[in-house]
């Protein structure tokens, strides 16, 4: 018996040595001809969230397609809680990547630290504000401009003259969506009344569909017939409420008509698109053409960074208002309409409209 045991031990050792020999000599990455290396680390949720992260991936994929052999792209997902996002950034930087994206404001501290340790690497952060690093581009969006257009769509389409807004976490970023939406609705329809609710004050507020459904149901019960959400995963609950009440909802970030379930799709009037893909793609192409610029860059209607979604599902539904929305868009780009960004500017805007 013990002989068998001994043989087992010997076998183990042989196998382990063989495995070690196989593993040791190779080298991790082959040296490649000089090409630009672009890395990207997703926000919590990772690929497949059908909005924010997938939009970032779309930008990366478009760059890969466009520049082909001139660039090499890698996208990495952090652990479920996002604890290792900084290590992943550091890993990319250590592997001599030329441009690295952090997707989401949660990357603010990590990108700041890593960018200080890797001065010759360029960074891009979506939604994060890091104005003072010479190698970080902060890519921000004029969410209020896009929200203004979907607000106008709601103001034109409402039959009850009541519309609703459901926000995720109550922070200035989300309040920009709210301000733009209310401004747009009142601009085209001064008699409109807008209900506003937020799901919470923490990050949890972006992944709480139960709360989202509750808030949306309450707003529909108060007579709203169109609700715009800016609440990430919480918005799934808003769409569920729209199906239950057979009323309309407006999506956010991605073209959500294309990403939700078919029964919810019918209830989606349009979506406020935040073109994370455009920001990612333009930053990459900027770097390749030697025009990468650190500092704050904002993407608004003019830069095609925000907008409203038209697709095969809602085309017939919003056909009648598209000319009006396009006119508003031109006015905003031309500076004839100044879309409010916060509560204070909104109050002035509304006062002017109602006068």
């Amino acid at each position, binding site marked *: *018996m*013990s002989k068998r*045991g*001994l043989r*087992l*031990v010997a076998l*183990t*050792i042989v*196998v*382990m040595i063989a*495995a*070690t020999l*196989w*593993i*040791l000599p*190779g080298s*991790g*990455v082959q040296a490649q001809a000089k090409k630009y290396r672009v890395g990207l680390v997703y926000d919590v949720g*990772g690929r497949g969230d059908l909005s924010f992260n997938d939009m970032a991936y779309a930008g990366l994929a478009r760059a890969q397609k466009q520049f082909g052999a001139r660039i090499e792209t*890698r996208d*990495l*997902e952090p*652990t*479920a*809680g*996002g*604890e*290792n996002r900084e*290590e*992943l950034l*550091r*890993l*990319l930087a*250590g*592997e001599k990547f030329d441009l690295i994206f952090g997707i989401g*404001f*949660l990357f*603010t501290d990590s990108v700041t*630290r890593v960018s200080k*340790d890797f001065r010759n690497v360029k960074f891009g952060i979506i939604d994060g504000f890091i104005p003072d690093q010479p190698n970080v581009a902060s890519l921000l969006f004029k969410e209020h401009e896009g929200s203004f257009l979907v607000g106008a769509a709601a103001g034109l389409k409402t039959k009850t003259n009541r519309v609703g807004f459901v926000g995720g*976490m109550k*922070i*200035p*970023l989300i309040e920009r969506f709210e301000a733009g939406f209310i401004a747009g609705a009142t601009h085209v329809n001064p008699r409109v009344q807008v209900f506003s609710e937020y799901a919470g*004050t*923490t*990050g*949890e507020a972006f992944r709480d569909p139960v709360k989202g459904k509750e808030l949306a149901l309450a707003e529909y019960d108060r007579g709203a017939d169109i609700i715009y959400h800016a609440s990430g995963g919480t918005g799934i609950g808003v769409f569920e409420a729209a199906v239950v009440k057979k009323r309309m909802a407006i999506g956010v970030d991605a073209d959500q008509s294309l990403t939700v379930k078919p029964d919810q799709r019918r209830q989606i009037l349009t979506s406020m698109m935040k073109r994370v893909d455009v920001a990612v793609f333009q930053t990459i192409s900027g770097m390749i053409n030697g025009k990468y610029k650190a500092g704050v860059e904002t993407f608004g209607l003019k830069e095609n960074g925000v907008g409203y979604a038209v697709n095969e599902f809602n085309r017939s539904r919003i056909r009648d208002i598209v000319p009006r929305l396009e006119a508003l868009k031109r006015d905003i780009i031309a500076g004839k309409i100044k879309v409010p960004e916060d509560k204070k500017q909104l109050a002035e805007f509304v006062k002017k409209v109602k006068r």
Partner: protein
Amino acid sequence: MKWRLFALQFATPLLAILFGVLIASIIVLAIGQNPLDVFGVLIRFGLLRSDSLLSILFKATPLIFAGLAVALSFRAALWNIGVEGQFYIGAFTAAYIGFTLKGLPIFIHLPLTILAAAAGGMAWALIPIVLKLRRGAHEVITTIMMNYIAAALILYLIADVFRDPSQVGTPRVRTPEFPPSARVPSMGPLLELFGLTGPDANKVNWLLPFGLVLCVVFAIVLSRTRFGYEVRAVAFSPLAAEAAGIPNARIQFLMFMLSGAVAGLVGLNDVLGFFGYLDIDFPKGLGFLGISVALLAKNNPLGVILAALLFGFLDRGAQGVQFFARTPKEVIVILQALIILAIVVAYELMTRYVRKQRKREAERPPPAATVAAEAGR
């Protein structure tokens, strides 16, 4: 005869790991990748880079505390599933002492902060153990419920009561920053003597040696003291212990409190050692990982160290596998779990086999002394 068994026993963990790797290889083959490439990257990236080794040490530090906390309760036949909640509360009490007290020298402030963490963990462990000993409420249920309460409570405390006023209006939800006197110093300067520098070296802090010492102390206490003997007696046979005059309830209470105190320290590695503030986004789930660590270590405090290092290695290695071998993250998570599961199962089987062999060896020529020694185990 004897040395063969000894060799077999020595090879047990190696065989267990090999078995885990074999099982995981099937999954890797199933997704169309070469297992040798994947494990090659795992080893090369995880063990042959200094930044990886340092990262493993940093990742293992909280797991040492978490594994030790769970092991301490398991040793007293108690199931502390509440390490997660106890560590939240400990992290918060530490943060509270960290940012409210100012102007103290580090040799007063830091110990106070660490004591506060232990006290927080103990306070959260107190309710389940009192309910258990006084009313017979099962601690698995109560500690799980306490986890939920702790999670909601500290979200409330961080976001609504003690939120850093300078961060209001930004998306950052966190407590004010602590002064340097409440932070655990980095081991960076010491590591520099060995030629290890950079941010990864600076992340490793003095909580690591503290955790190691704690493990050694508990290993000695549990195996070499009267108290340790009493704990074993209570866990092995409460009735016999009671008959021998060992106060069951008191021993269980003490061990659970110790478990809670150690649990309170789990979050310090990140909160005091790295961030310097308690963010709403701080690492979670370490308490539950601690259960796996303790089980893998068979509740041995010294084994906890090895198990925590293995978890740290798998965690770090996973990044390399995602990066260099381009294995999808979801598959990596499955691999990690499979390796650990296979190790636990294989280890158990091997130990049983060795024990049986030993018994047979002992039975063959029965010298009275060996039999007596076996029976005494």
